[in-house]
C-alpha cells in the first residue's frame, strides 16, 4: 500500500527566534496537518541556531516532526550528536535533521561522525534496575573511534542513542551531500535528487496538486515540500492548496517520526564477543 502523502515545509524567517512568533506558527503548522517542519533551509543563511529552536519546540510536538538545519560551522559533530540525541528523546522521537554547509564532503563527514557516536550505544544498553543496582550493561557500549575526512572523534558520546536510533536524515538538493543512510531527499522537478529512501518534490504554493497526487499514487514521489517566506500568511494557503491530498489521509496516529513516515528504525545491539574481537 502506498504510504500517505507527506507534506513538508521550511521556515527561514528570523522571527523564528522569537517564541511569541514561533509558538503559534508551530501550532498552526501542526494542526494543519504538516508532517515535517524544517527549521531553516540548507544553503540559505540562518539567523538563529536551529538546534536550540528544535529543543524549545520538543514539548509541543504531537503529530509533526521538526528538522533543524545543522551547519558544519555550528560546532563539532560530538556536540551535534549530543544535542540531537537529547532533543529526539524530549520530542518523543519526532526529530529529523538536515546537515548543511559549504563543503559537501565535510557535511557528509559530520553526519557520519554523528551516526558513529550514536551507534556506539546499543538500543538495549540500559537496565536501570534499582534492586540489583545495575544501571547498564557495559558490554553494550563500544568506543566508535571515528576517523573521517574532516573529523576525528573517539567516543563514546555521553548521550544515549537517540529515541529513533538515528533522527530522520534529510538531504536538500540545493545543498546536497551523499550518504547511504539518507532518509528523505528534497529536490525540485528536473533537479538531481540525493539518493534517499523517500523523495519529496520541492514545489511552490501554486503547485498542480492533482498532478502531485498522481505522481504520489504512481510511487514517483513520497510527498511535497514547500519553502515558506511568510509562514503566518502562507501556512493557511498551503493547507488549502494541499487539502485534496492531505485531508482524510490514513496517517499513523502514534509513534515516532520514522514510524509515522514509514521509515525503518535502525536497531543496534553490540555484544561482549564483538568488543573482544
Amino acid at each position, binding site marked *: 500500500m502506498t504510504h500517505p502523502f507527506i507534506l513538508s515545509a521550511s521556515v527561514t524567517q528570523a522571527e523564528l527566534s522569537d517564541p511569541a512568533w*514561533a509558538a503559534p506558527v508551530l501550532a498552526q503548522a501542526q494542526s494543519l496537518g504538516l508532517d515535517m517542519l524544517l527549521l531553516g533551509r540548507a544553503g540559505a543563511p540562518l*539567523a538563529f541556531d536551529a538546534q536550540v529552536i528544535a529543543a524549545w519546540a*520538543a514539548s509541543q510536538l504531537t503529530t509533526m516532526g521538526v528538522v533543524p538545519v545543522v551547519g558544519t560551522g555550528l*560546532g563539532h559533530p560530538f*556536540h551535534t550528536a549530543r544535542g540531537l540525541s537529547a532533543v529526539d528523546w524530549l520530542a518523543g522521537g519526532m526529530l529529523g535533521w538536515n546537515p548543511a554547509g559549504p563543503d559537501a564532503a565535510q557535511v557528509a563527514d559530520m553526519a557520519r561522525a554523528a551516526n558513529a557516536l550514536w551507534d556506539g550505544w546499543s538500543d538495549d544498553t540500559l537496565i*536501570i534496575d534499582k534492586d540489583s543496582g545495575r544501571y547498564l550493561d557495559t558490554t553494550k557500549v563500544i568506543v566508535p573511534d571515528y576517523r573521517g575526512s574532516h573529523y*576525528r572523534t573517539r567516543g563514546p558520546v*555521553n548521550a*544515549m542513542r537517540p529515541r529513533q536510533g538515528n533522527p530522520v536524515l534529510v538531504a536538500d538538493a540545493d545543498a546536497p551531500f551523499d550518504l547511504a543512510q539518507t532518509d528523505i531527499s528534497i529536490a525540485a522537478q528536473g533537479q538531481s535528487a540525493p539518493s534517499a529512501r523517500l523523495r519529496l518534490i520541492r514545489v511552490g504554493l501554486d503547485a498542480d496538486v492533482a498532478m502531485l497526487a498522481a505522481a504520489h499514487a504512481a510511487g514517483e514521489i513520497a510527498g511535497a515540500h514547500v519553502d515558506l517566506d511568510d509562514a503566518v500568511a502562507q501556512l493557511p494557503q498551503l493547507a488549502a492548496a494541499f487539502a485534496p491530498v492531505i485531508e482524510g489521509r490514513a496517517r499513523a496516529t502514534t509513534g515516532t517520526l520514522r514510524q509515522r513516515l514509514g521509515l525503518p528504525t535502525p536497531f543496534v545491539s553490540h555484544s561482549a564477543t564483538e568488543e573482544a574481537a
Partner: protein
Amino acid sequence: MAKQLHLWAFLQGIGHYPSGWRHAGARPADVWSMDYYRHVGQLVERGRFDAIVFGDQLQSRKGGDRTPERLAMPTLDPMALLSAIASVTSHVGLVNTLSTTYWTPESLAERFWTMDRMTGGRVGWNIVTSAHPDTAWNFGDEPMPEKSARYRNARETVAAAQAIWRRLNAERGTSPQQRPVFVQAGQSGDGRDFAAHTAEAIFCPAATMEDGIAFRSDLRARVAAAGRDPDGVKIMPGLSFILADTQEAAMAKDAALIALADDDLCIEYLSESLCCDLTVFDRNAPVPAEAILEATILPREDIAKVLERPVSSGMSLLQFATTYVRTPRGHNVFRGTPEQMAEMMISWINAGASDGFTMQPAYMPGELEIFVDQVVPILQARGALREEYPGTTLRESMGLPRWPADMGPADMAQAEAV
C-alpha cells in the same frame, strides 16, 4: 528586612549521591522524557529559584576504558534540556555549561544568542575550560591543553564572543539580556582570577561556614582588585541535603542512601575519579598504588596525593572505595529537619559566607520536592526568600546590572578587555 538569599538548582544527572538513582524517590528512567523536565522546571520555579544549572562534561563516564555499570548516565546535552524547560516555564533562569576549549566564539555566541531569545532572557553561561584528558580525543588528535593555556584561551574566547553578541544584537535586534549571565566555577588560582575578571556568579564547594567566608572574602577582594563591584558577583556554594522530620531520621535516611552504594558501585566510582579501571584488582588487598599510577591518565602527582593516606593507613582497596563514596566532591551536605536547614541557610547569608546556595539534591526529584514543599515556605516566612520573581530575566532574578548600559566605566573597560 532580612537579607534575601538566592537559590540555584544544580541538576546534572539524577542527584548528588552516586547511589541516589537507587532511592525509592528517584526516577532515573524518566530523565529521557519531557514530562520529567516539565515537572522539575515547574517545581524549581515554584520554589522561586533564580536558575537551574546543568553541569556538563564532554566525555562519557569511564574508569580507565571501561564504562561503569552502576553509575547513572549518560547525561543529556544541557542546551537541549534547558531550551525544552524554557518552553514550559516563564521565570526560572537556565544556565548552560559550555566549554571555551571545545567551542569557537562564533558557534557559542550563536547558540547563546538564540537561547537568550527563546528563553525570553533567562539564559546564563557556566564558563568551563574542560579538564578531563579523555575529552580531547572526542574532538581530534590534539591532547588537552595545559590549564594556564586553557584559561588564556577562555579570556580570548569570552572577549571574542562579547564582540559577536554586540554585532548580532545590532544586526538582528537584541536578545533580551544582550548576552548570557556569566557563571564560573574555577577554584584554582587561575580559575579565581578568571572569575574575578569575568563572572557575575560563582559556584564553589564550601564544606563549612568558615570555608564559605574565606572563599567569598577572597573572591570579593579579587573582584574589587579587578576594578569591579563585589556586589555584582554572587557567591553560590554547593549544598547537598538530606531532609527528614527529625535529625535522627535524616541521619538514618543518609545512612540508607550510603548503603545503596554497594561495593561494586564504590569501586566503579573510585575508578572514575582515579581514571583507572579498579575492577581488575583484588579489592581486599592493599591499594595497588603503583599500578594505579601506571594506568591513570590524570596528572600522576595529583593521584599520588589522593593515594597517600589510604596507602599509609594500610586500608584495602574496597575500604578506600567505600570511604571515598561518602564525600562526593567535597560539597557541604546538610542532614536534618526543614527548620534546621532554613536556619542554617539564613545563618550563612548573615555571616557573609555566601549570597545563596547551589542546591544539589541527593537524589531526584524526590529530595528537591521535599525542599520546595517544606524549606522554601520557611525561608519565605522568615523574609529570606522572595514570594514572587522581580522580573522575567535571569539578570533581574539575580539582581545584576544590565550589560553594558548599567555598567560603570571600569566595568565596561573590563568587559572589553577580558
